[in-house]
């Protein structure tokens, strides 16, 4: 899994793109890398264009990030693939998260 983290802009917007799967091997690293970048972030946009799939470990990490961002602003996940949408819908995450 690769994560590309843009520089936080002056409005507190942070764009991050993820490539690969967010699974039991990568979920903790996904969460930790993004958490380290959230100081001053008011709007976190995660680009899931290249996310292949998300397992329950990935869901847990996404939920943790979403909870933190609810306290300091908002989190948006954009460009989810069909496989990721299937997982979000079957687990109700499509209702918990802001998807674009």
């Amino acid at each position: 899994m690769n994560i590309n983290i843009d520089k936080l802009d002056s409005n507190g917007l942070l764009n991050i793109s993820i490539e690969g799967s967010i699974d039991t091997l990568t979920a903790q690293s996904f969460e930790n890398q993004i958490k380290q970048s959230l100081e001053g972030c008011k709007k976190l946009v995660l680009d899931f264009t290249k996310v292949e799939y998300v397992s329950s470990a990935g869901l847990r990490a996404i939920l943790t990030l979403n909870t933190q961002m609810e306290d300091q602003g908002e989190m948006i996940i954009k460009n989810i693939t069909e496989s990721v949408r299937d997982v979000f819908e079957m687990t109700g995450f499509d209702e918990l998260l802001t998807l674009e």
Partner: protein
Amino acid sequence: MDTKEFHELSVDSPIENFAVVKDWLQSIFDIIGCVGKPAKQLFIAVDEMFTNIAHYAYQDVGKVYFKASYNADEKTLKISIIDNGDKYNPLEKPDPDIAQRIKDKTVGGLGIFMTKKMVDSIEYSRVDDKNVLVLYKKII
């Protein structure tokens, strides 16, 4: 019936060994031409079941065995996952109340639920003091 049998895989239970399991699965997918959605769904299903064993089957480290076979006529991949832990049938666990989970914002118990959704059928048996979980998945 045209059935391909694949070599078994044996790994120790710590979670980082899922990398080995993923490589083994991918090698099977390459042979039988499993790509796209079915491949992703199988990665998720095996991830969830291996994670379950890694966290709960053994007090310390134990072995996890995998077997796979492919029925070309039915285009169905069969994956058996076997451990020597205490008897545990994950299929007896009731499906989570999704509405309540959304309300509570929790993810516990989603692994086996997701696995059941990702495969066409799933069976559990207790054989020779081993837990045997078998996943069946049509690959197209």
